[in-house]
């Protein structure tokens, strides 16, 4: 029997969704989160790295810094989703879609507005 997982906290959810496109470093994560949330979510460095640290501990992301030779003159750390992290991200997307579908009948009809 599979145990139902709790929804991810907001910061983790945004970062996991941001990493769906592939590996990113901290600043790119921050920008991608702002992009996918249409500028509504702007994280600071403490939130970004605190959440990345938690996701690393939970095995949802992994560091990929040393796997590829980088052109960066400054050494940045890159992160990507693990297989488990990708599965969680897809689950979260499905959950959000179901939630939106369930609640969208309350939205005003575009034809009447």
């Amino acid at each position: 029997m599979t145990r139902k997982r709790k929804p991810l906290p907001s910061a983790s959810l945004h970062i996991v969704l941001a990493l769906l496109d592939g590996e990113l470093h901290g600043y790119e994560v921050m920008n991608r989160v702002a992009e996918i949330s249409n500028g509504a979510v702007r994280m600071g460095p403490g939130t970004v790295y605190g959440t990345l640290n938690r996701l690393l501990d939970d095995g949802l992301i992994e560091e990929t810094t040393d796997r590829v030779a980088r052109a960066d003159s400054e050494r940045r750390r890159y992160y990507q989703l693990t297989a488990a992290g990708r599965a969680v991200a897809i689950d979260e997307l499905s959950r959000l879609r179901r939630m939106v579908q369930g609640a969208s009948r309350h939205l005003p009809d575009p034809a009447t507005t």
Partner: protein
Amino acid sequence: MNTVAVYRVCLRLYPRRFRDEYAADMALLLSDQLQAEPALRVWGRLALDLLITIPNHHLEAHMNRHSTTLVSWVFALISGAAAIVAAILGSVIGWLGILLAISAASGITAVVAHRQSRLITGRPASANWWKFLAGGALTLAILAAVTTRTGELPTGWWVPSMIVLLAALGACVAGAVLGVTHLIKARSGHLMG
């Protein structure tokens, strides 16, 4: 002092482990931000970020700490100190009884607290074989010192002394058995690995 240098000072407010791991990356992220956005806007967000995440990280660090490890050490120290004082004041029977009782109670609490902390860390019991052996040997030594100092045991002390003696011998035997088990496990693990 520039903005990033001020931020580096602020980073000292984070828990050490987090700081050691991420401070350089966080400062780099800030310098990237400052190149793309006005400093005032970045600092506005940064102040809020610091205000929220510093207490949060301290709370997390505190919750992840194994508090029972400290408890077990404190009680082990109390137990040891009480046993040493009991050995020194061996001729005063009343004090000897009280101190030995304190030592035994603290020792038991230390063992219980240590077992709880071990459950968190998930280390096998056999890894602690030497502690049983050392504890048993120490108790035997204290018992020998106390009986040598007091001479013949007074009436009523024979039974408790025998119980302590048997417990100490039991701890020594348990330590030896666990030590052998640990050695066998380590060898088989090494061969399998």
